[in-house]
């Protein structure tokens, strides 16, 4: 059965809520006339519930299948976290309530900050960024502010490796910096020499992802950090892949000045089809004074919230990034996850994530082309050399995985290898699941080699929709439903 759009299910007169009559008919609209009508569809609750239930069934999700989307970290989302995030004491409190009525909430933020600082070894953390990219913005603004405070606003150049996430250059540009690309070495790493070649007194910072987007730990990271620091720049670390090292390596020990942490990756708050995320940024001593407003401090009368620069003491906050205090709902979930795992469990998390990725790598490298030698970190990078001459593209290969019941891996990223296929199983997949997945991948690779091109090109077959025409979508964008002419 097809599922119509909610607007097409409109049945004027039906309603999905029962509301009382207003207590008075009087209005005080300051001279404005009430709106004549809105244009929304009308449905009763049963039809709304069924509509969205049926829509949900058209999705793959981590709850239903392996979802090895490299760099996106689709790990199990514990249900306890959803339960505690819904405690009225967290979900039903207003950001502008008097602080004496939200002491538990402020303490929770403080506890989460303590975990993040202790795990990373960093002295400070900015909690308000709304997602990873927002955290990058926070980090670069802190760097911007620190440079201004040093009277070095001439430093406008930001070094970004070519393997970086698109958010890195976009963020740098968003902050008014110019982006200078560092080439990636043949081994998928950034070399300290390549960085040194770019350094100069106009360099604000380097933005480096570690482990990098090829799923590799940057072995020269400390040397790079030292070189950047020596040149007067800062080291921004993209923490999207922090899940590979949490509990085993502290970013502070690598010379990091700022790093965002995607709570929805490393600490398992749900992705929810594209958010909400949460991207706290840990900061070094050099950058800590510039952390944005608001922030929580603990005083003699309990916790307080510093919302204005005038109350910030010696700190020099660079401003405000978000409407209120950050993604509280995600904080609760992340803290529940951390408490559940503990220091011992979090170390096991990264160990198992790396083990699972290497198991996939080792089990597939004879039939798929691994892009780099040696072990990987939390994700295994392949490229399309194994498909050469088969007429099967990475996209075709990915679509064929769908019919086998798996969500495809990340494709065509990172850009530094041709036809990238980036597999991140995460630590929450069992060996049994991986063995089944490996079996399927080997089967598909063999099928491709055997010349069954049409199988791949006609995939997926078993989904509610076959391949969608993205070109048409972009050429004449239809971005909303409009009522058909009568």
């Amino acid at each position, binding site marked *: 059965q097809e599922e119509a759009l909610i607007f097409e299910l409109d049945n004027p007169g039906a309603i999905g809520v029962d509301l009382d009559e207003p207590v008075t008919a009087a209005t005080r609209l300051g001279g404005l006339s009430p709106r004549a009508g809105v244009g929304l569809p009308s449905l009763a609750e049963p039809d709304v519930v069924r509509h969205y239930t049926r829509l949900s069934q058209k999705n793959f999700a981590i709850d239903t299948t392996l979802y090895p989307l490299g760099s996106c970290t689709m790990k199990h989302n514990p249900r306890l976290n959803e339960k505690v995030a819904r405690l009225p004491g967290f979900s039903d*409190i207003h950001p502008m*309530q008097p602080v004496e009525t*939200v002491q538990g909430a402020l303490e929770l933020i403080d506890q989460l900050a303590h975990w993040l600082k202790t795990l990373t070894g960093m002295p400070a953390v900015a909690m308000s960024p709304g997602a990873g*990219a927002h955290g990058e913005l926070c980090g670069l603004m802190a760097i911007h502010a620190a440079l201004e405070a040093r009277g070095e606003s001439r430093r406008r150049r930001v070094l970004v490796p070519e393997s970086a996430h698109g958010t890195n250059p976009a963020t740098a540009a968003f902050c008014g910096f110019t982006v200078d690309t560092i080439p990636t070495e043949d081994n998928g790493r950034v070399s300290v020499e390549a960085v040194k070649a770019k350094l100069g007194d106009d360099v604000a910072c380097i933005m480096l992802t570690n482990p990098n987007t090829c799923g590799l730990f940057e072995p020269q990271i400390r040397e790079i950090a030292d070189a950047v620091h020596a040149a007067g720049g800062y080291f921004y670390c993209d923490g999207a892949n922090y899940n590979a090292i949490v509990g085993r390596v502290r970013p502070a020990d690598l010379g990091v000045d700022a790093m965002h942490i995607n709570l929805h990756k490393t600490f398992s708050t749900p992705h929810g089809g594209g958010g909400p995320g949460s991207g706290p940024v840990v900061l070094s001593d050099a950058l800590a004074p510039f952390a944005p407003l608001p922030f929580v401090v603990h005083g003699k009368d309990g916790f307080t919230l510093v919302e204005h620069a005038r109350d910030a003491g010696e700190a020099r906050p660079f401003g405000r990034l978000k409407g209120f205090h950050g993604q509280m709902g995600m904080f609760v979930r992340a803290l529940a996850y951390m408490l559940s795992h503990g*220091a011992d469990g979090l170390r096991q998390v990264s160990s198992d994530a790396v083990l699972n990725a290497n198991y996939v790598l080792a089990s597939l490298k004879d039939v798929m082309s691994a892009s780099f030698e040696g072990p990987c970190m939390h994700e295994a990078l392949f490229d399309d050399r194994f498909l050469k001459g088969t007429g099967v593209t990475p996209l075709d290969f990915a679509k064929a995985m769908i019919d086998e019941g798996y969500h495809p891996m990340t494709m065509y990223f990172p850009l530094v290898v041709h036809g990238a296929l980036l597999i991140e199983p995460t630590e929450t997949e069992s060996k049994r699941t991986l063995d089944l997945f490996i079996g399927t991948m080997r089967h598909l690779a063999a099928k491709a080699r055997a010349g069954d091109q049409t199988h791949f090109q006609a995939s997926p077959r078993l989904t509610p929709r076959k391949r969608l025409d993205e070109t048409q979508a*972009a050429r004449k964008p239809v971005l909303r439903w409009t009522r058909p002419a009568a």
Partner: protein
Amino acid sequence: MRYLPLTDADRAAMLSTIGVDSVDALFRDVPDHARLPGKIAGLPDHKGELEVERHLSRLAARNVAASTVPFFVGAGAYKHHVPASVDQILLRGEFLTSYTPYQPEVTQGTLQYLFEFQTQVAVLTGMDVANASMYDGATGTAEAVLMAARVNKRNKVILSGGLHPHYREVVETTCGVMGMDIRAQAPDWKNAEELSALLDAETSAVVVQTPSLFGHLRDFTALCEAAHAKGVMVIVVVTEVVSLGLLPSPGSMGADIVVCEGQSIGNGLNFGGPYVGLFATRDKFVRQMPGRLCGQTVDADGKRGFVLTLSTREQHIRREKATSNICTNSGLCALAFTIHLSLLGEQGLVQLARINHANAVMLADKLSAVKGVSVVNDGFFNEFTVKLPRKAAKVVSKLAARNILAGVPVSRLHPDVEGLDDLLLVAVTEISSVEDMDALARGLEEVL
């Protein structure tokens, strides 16, 4: 450990397949000095569900939940009733644990609700198109200012004194770093501001809010006409979307970009986040929009389907030339918005808005009757400003001690501006009973 399926036997077998003798060997690229030999010190070990739940429940119990007291706090976040079905659909794993719909064949569920969301937002704001959400209203406003600058290549932006100060600060922070010239007006608590006179050929955009921070209502039609005559974009901010069931849409007044905080529909207070920013504009500006867009197309069989589209605007394709660095947005909050708005429907939203307004009218009358208290506003939706005979912050504290959350003192939002200490923002929604309102009026009488 309950979330980790590998057993020691599994680990041993897998290491053997890989050909190394320990997981440590896989971390060989980590510099020696940075390799921790064991778990990080200073943090507790793993805990069972019962303990974790108890720990967090104890923290939760130290907060005063809105539904447990007479509650009148607004100023950009509003306590509304959300139907139970909204959250139960949100908890479905297929929505909760899915990712950004990069593979449209297996994410039509997410894509279709995003298309419905975009349509709802466009309809509600009276605009042509909307994106698939922003982090919140404040960040959306900053993005709108940057977008306007991309459209008309101008650098100056005027912020109304009715704009929520947090929004102003986010614009100042975000757009300031880009070197924009930001002219924030003084707090307009008397609704006396005239912005048309400030517009000139250097002005990229003017940002206004309705209802304003102080609850005032305005018809921006004339402002839009004046702005358009000078090539200035008008950005209209709405922090209480329920008002759009009763008030004229920003689109009908001529807005170029509309940004709303969508929290009021479908989303709880959550101490400030996650919320959902609504972002709508005119068709002609669509390629300058920030954020994700879901578009309609057809599949190989010619059937209607949905995909993320116009991604050439986005960072993962366009990198430093992207319209924004936004990646993850507020998908699940957008879904909550869409489900709740679908339940409300045409009649429900209008009725809900009327109830909110009627409660505010009643409360304004009750508070006006308190000696020494006056309502500042001529018109308002569900929030208004009252002038008290003493400092509002003190009054709020005293009432909080009596378990009445009376509203937001303007001084908390504008601490650096003189003469606002006696102003209090009071919001009222459908959740406030007549008894709650009487409790506030009585409480005020007692503490003043």
